[in-house]
């Protein structure tokens, strides 16, 4: 598994990479400096730990997969356009936000990366990542579109901001009125002070939403439902395993043990992914909970050093 990968490509040991490495090194002194700030979190973690068998598990979301891939279009349609000229420019800004006058009457607040295309009459912003604010004086352009990654939104208004996070794409109207039509959702009219969220449309995006819902201690049923939508998109590899694991843990939390077993077994029968070991562990724990370890003997074997204590628990309930 490692042979070819170990040989190529070569590490880039340029002076710049070396400088970045050496200038950001952290050590034990840093740990001692930061540790006091974690006192409360450590005490809570120590107090809330429970033995594995009776643990009230929360979802384990290992891989990011937060980056969704879908399409969003924001369209702004004031009147009185100036003569059209082609626009072409990259928009890249990290760290702090940058204010840009795209055209007279069209102001942007950029933090992230994307590009500008189209014409001065119909600017098209292709937004790859990060946050973008748009403010348009009525009459400055005929139409302005922002393409990002979440469904399809059409907006008519004068000032709005778009924030993409794990929950989806949030559209907030600061001035004027806006029509928003997310993909797979009916169009809705928003006015100043209103906001809405367009949900992700890809498996990765939906997994990210499930992560964020779980962060907010949302209802487990809603999280599982989100993951089921993600699974229905036909993800593969590591993403499929991550979704599977989340579904299995969620169903277990809902005490739907049989369904959880079916989900986990199907994933383990399918293609390999980054969470093989976690899935096998969950399969065994579910089997123990169902008091029937008959179908998980191979998993226990494959778990190596983790296997014997699991086997002992299986033996205790009288299964092979």
């Amino acid at each position, binding site marked *: 598994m*490692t042979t070819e*990968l170990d040989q*190529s*490509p070569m*590490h*880039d*040991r340029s002076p*710049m990479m070396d400088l*970045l*490495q050496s*200038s*950001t*090194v*952290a*050590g034990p002194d840093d*740990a*001692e400096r*930061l*540790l006091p700030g*974690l006192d409360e*979190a*450590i005490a*809570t*973690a*120590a*107090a*809330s*730990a*429970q*033995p594995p068998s009776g643990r009230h*598990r*929360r979802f*384990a979301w*290992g*891989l*990011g997969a937060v*980056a969704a891939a879908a399409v969003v279009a924001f369209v702004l349609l004031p009147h009185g356009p100036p003569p059209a000229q082609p626009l072409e420019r990259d928009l*890249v800004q*990290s*760290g702090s*936000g*940058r*204010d*840009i*006058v795209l055209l007279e009457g069209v102001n942007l*607040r950029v*933090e992230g*990366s994307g590009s500008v295309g189209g014409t001065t009459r119909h600017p098209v912003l292709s937004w790859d990542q*990060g946050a973008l604010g748009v403010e348009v004086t009525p009459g400055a352009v005929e139409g302005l579109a922002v393409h990002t990654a979440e469904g399809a939104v059409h907006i008519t208004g004068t000032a709005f901001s778009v*924030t993409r*996070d794990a929950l989806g794409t949030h559209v907030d109207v600061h001035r004027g009125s806006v029509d928003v039509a997310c993909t797979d959702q009916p169009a809705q009219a928003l006015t100043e002070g209103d906001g809405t969220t367009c949900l992700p449309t890809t498996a990765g995006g939906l997994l990210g939403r499930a*992560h964020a819902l779980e962060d907010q201690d949302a209802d487990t049923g809603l999280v599982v439902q989100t993951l089921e939508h993600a699974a229905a998109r036909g993800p593969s*590899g*590591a993403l499929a395993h991550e979704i599977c694991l989340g579904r299995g843990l969620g169903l277990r939390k809902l005490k739907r043990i049989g369904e959880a077993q079916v989900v986990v077994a199907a994933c383990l029968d399918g293609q390999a992914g*980054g*969470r093989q*070991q*976690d899935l096998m*562990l*969950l399969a065994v724990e579910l089997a123990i909970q169902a008091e029937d370890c008959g179908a998980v003997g191979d998993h226990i074997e494959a778990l190596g050093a983790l296997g014997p204590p699991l086997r002992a628990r299986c033996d205790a309930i009288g299964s092979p």
Partner: protein
Amino acid sequence: MSMRMPERWDAVQRGDRAAIETMCRTWLPVVLQWTRRLGGPRVDADSATQEVFIVALRRLHTVRAPEAFERWLFSVTRRVLSQHRRAVWGRRWESDQQVDDMSGPANPEADFTRMTQATQIQEVVATLPEDLAAVLVLYDVEGRTMPEVVDMLGVSEGTLRTRLRSARAQFRKVATKRGLIPEESK
């Protein structure tokens, strides 16, 4: 390598406070390096690192296999950094900054030149898409092997190679544009 598996994992899982503290001491520097390298100079790396541990300690019990710990911790770090970048953006959006006119030369690096070279490099890494920056940091900066990075990111070998190529190319492009690399040395 012992860095890949927290010491006394069972004790940590049982809630042994001393074991949890030891684990924090071991991994705080690792995470601090990640937040410094991936977050860029405008993200408060100390604060982000502590937040990573607050989240991680709350969710420690969700890590089933100790071998998965480092990968899981890295994913928590990436998510926390993403939130920090958004927070920085939101604050700036609220309180206005100077306006750059796009009709002028494409040179937003006015204050860039005032940074130290190391900070400039951090800034360039922070301009990369997050997936590319992660590959660059793990492979070229931290010198991990390809299989290790494959494991950390949970992507295929082919995807990793493609991302590494793109990351290096984009880094070189931005670094050249900002004068960190001379034009002729491609």
